[in-house]
């Protein structure tokens, strides 16, 4: 065990992955000698050489196109997109290529070795182009896996699982927590399962569901609710696609109430998908409408960030409203 922040945990996972498999390659803008703008790939070029850890030209569609080709060839590309806000030039390569490679070829070829790492999310005064949470765009694409860790321990175990998974994975890293989230992390190799949610705190009155950095928010809201005598069951979804319906259904069947919270805007966010599925599966168990506490349907603001975000107070109000419905 060692104290690590989320960046250290990711760096540690990358070192393990590149050590165990000489075909693992890390690249992206500023990823080489500099170690990435957040320093997640720090020291990798020194350790593994310039052929296996390098800067790419500034072209996201090229980074992912290159990664798709490398993965199809049998290498293990771990590509970084510097900010999730800048992933859109690569949207075609991800949605039309990575996601469909195996299916369209009848399994003659696949890019299952591909992992795309990208920092996402707000709370860093990053304004509209350094704060977005675009997971729902990718969740609408069969063939991809979408993973979001909430802390250093989760980040290392889920990233190693993502790199070794035989499907293309987009790994969204909560950049607000890169240095803010610190915890005990095993120094040895371990994996956490993809496609499995985790019940972080058991409870009986209401289910709170989130992922990534939003987990802190719902945990804080649950603490407030506890002082009112409300017992919250807290679930980290961890994998957005394919998502763990069973764990959420079991919880809501028990509690009868659900609040889903996400950083991304409300309309057509992944919380909407969860709400639709849970109302179908748990219809006769529900005591109140499922609440979605999300970002507003605007671009991510700058000076009014505090007002815009789905903070713990908005989640707390939703909990009370659900209980008193």
């Amino acid at each position, binding site marked *: 065990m060692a104290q690590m922040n989320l960046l250290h945990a990711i760096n540690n996972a990358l070192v393990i992955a590149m050590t165990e498999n000489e075909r693992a390659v890390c690249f992206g803008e500023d990823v080489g000698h500099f170690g990435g703008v957040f320093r997640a790939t720090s020291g990798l070029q020194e350790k593994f050489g310039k052929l296996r850890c390098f800067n790419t030209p500034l072209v996201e569609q090229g980074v992912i196109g290159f990664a798709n*080709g490398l993965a199809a060839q049998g*290498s293990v590309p771990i590509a970084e997109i510097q900010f999730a806000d800048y992933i859109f030039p690569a949207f075609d390569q991800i949605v039309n290529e990575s996601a469909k490679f195996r299916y*369209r070829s009848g399994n*003659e070829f696949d890019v299952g070795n591909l992992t795309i790492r990208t920092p996402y999310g707000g709370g860093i005064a990053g304004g509209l182009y350094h704060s977005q949470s675009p997971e729902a765009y990718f969740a609408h694409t069969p063939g991809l896996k979408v993973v979001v860790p909430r802390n250093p321990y989760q980040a290392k175990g889920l990233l190693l699982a993502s790199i070794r998974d035989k499907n293309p994975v987009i790994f969204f890293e909560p950049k607000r927590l890169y240095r803010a989230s610190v915890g005990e992390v095993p120094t040895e190799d371990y994996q956490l399962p993809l*496609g499995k949610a985790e019940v972080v705190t058991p409870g009986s009155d209401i289910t709170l569901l989130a992922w990534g950095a939003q987990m802190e928010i719902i945990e804080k809201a649950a603490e407030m609710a506890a002082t009112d005598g409300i017992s919250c069951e807290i679930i980290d979804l961890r994998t957005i696609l394919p998502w763990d319906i069973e764990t959420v259904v079991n919880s809501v069947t028990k509690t009868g109430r659900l609040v889903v919270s996400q950083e991304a805007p409300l309309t057509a966010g992944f919380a909407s998908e969860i709400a639709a599925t849970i109302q179908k599966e748990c219809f006769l168990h529900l005591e109140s409408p499922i609440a979605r506490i999300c970002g507003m349907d605007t671009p991510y603001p700058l000076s009014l960030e505090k007002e815009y975000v789905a903070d713990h107070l908005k989640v707390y109000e939703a909990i009370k409203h659900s209980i008193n419905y």
Partner: protein
Amino acid sequence: MNTDVYKESPVVHQPAFIDGHSVEIPILKVLQQDGNVYDGAELPVIDQESATKIYKTLAFHRALDERMVASQRQGRLSFYMTALGEEAASVGGAAGLKPQDMIMAQYREQGALMYRGFSLENFMNQMFSNEKDLGKGRQMPIHYGSRELNYMTISSPLATQIPQATGYAYGQKLQGLDAVTICYFGEGAASEGDFHAGLNMAAVHRAPVIFFCRNNGYAISTPADEQYAGNGIASRGVGYGIKTIRIDGNDILAVLKATQDARTYALAENKPVLIEAMSYRLGAHSTSDDPSGYRTREEEAKWQAHDPILRMKNWMLANKWWDEEQETTLFDKLREEILAAVKVAEIIDKPPVEDLITDVYDEPPTLLKAQLEELKLHIKKYPEAYPFTAGRIK
């Protein structure tokens, strides 16, 4: 850090704009239309056996294209794309490589796959999207692919294969393989961002990839002079710092020579090469297209006189490696075999309904399995509405 390019520039004190067309790009021609080789032309490595294989592949290509367009017109096939008039680019390119080299094509390069030995049955099964199709009946006709033959499955979105080819070749280099990647695309696709991304990254990261542009004059209806204003696609290679050559794409010997040399260079230097093959799309873009809406018969006739297959035949005849009797026998046999193969493939069953959910992931997730079960129940309820699958559901 390399900023030497500035130090090497001659310094001037009056503005010296460089003309956008100042780079002169010669065009390699080896074989004349009458079958004679140009004086002093350097020949590729070729003998009677390899020449015959190339010529038979070209003949197969022509015969298949003719038959499949006819089948589409008869309503037996949904869609087809010929490579009429530019078959030398794909067949000659594949012939200049080794079997272990990866081919990443756009969609009009079935000739390369033919050269590699993809069977007539495999072509048919793909086009009729039946249960024997390697691609499991998931893509429109002509989207072939074969791992065994190192021919990457075709993807409809244009130019996406270009940066992928760079990555693929980079992987080959990392493994130290005796293998390169060839990447085909048209002059239209070269306007896509992926073209820039792929070429630039290949040059910067030294990937052994051969970029092969078939400049056939048209992107569906858009002529090349409405596609770009520069000196073709070749001039861009120079800008990326890539070794570049322009060739007569209807000249099989020029294609073969350029590809053979490009392979040697790419492998020895770990660097990319750009080949721009000048040709003409004699056929329609696809069976859904009608070129009479955007070009003249006169223009087409002019290019019919540059037929690459006839040119090679003339050379074969001049070498006494081929004769008219062999020609007739070959084409009669091909037409017969192809027609027979159509009749077989078109009545083979569609893929089973279970194939709807396989290969989306390595293993179908729980939700997808549930969706399939739900669908099966629905099909059983209305079997007459789903005749291909209803009778086969367990």
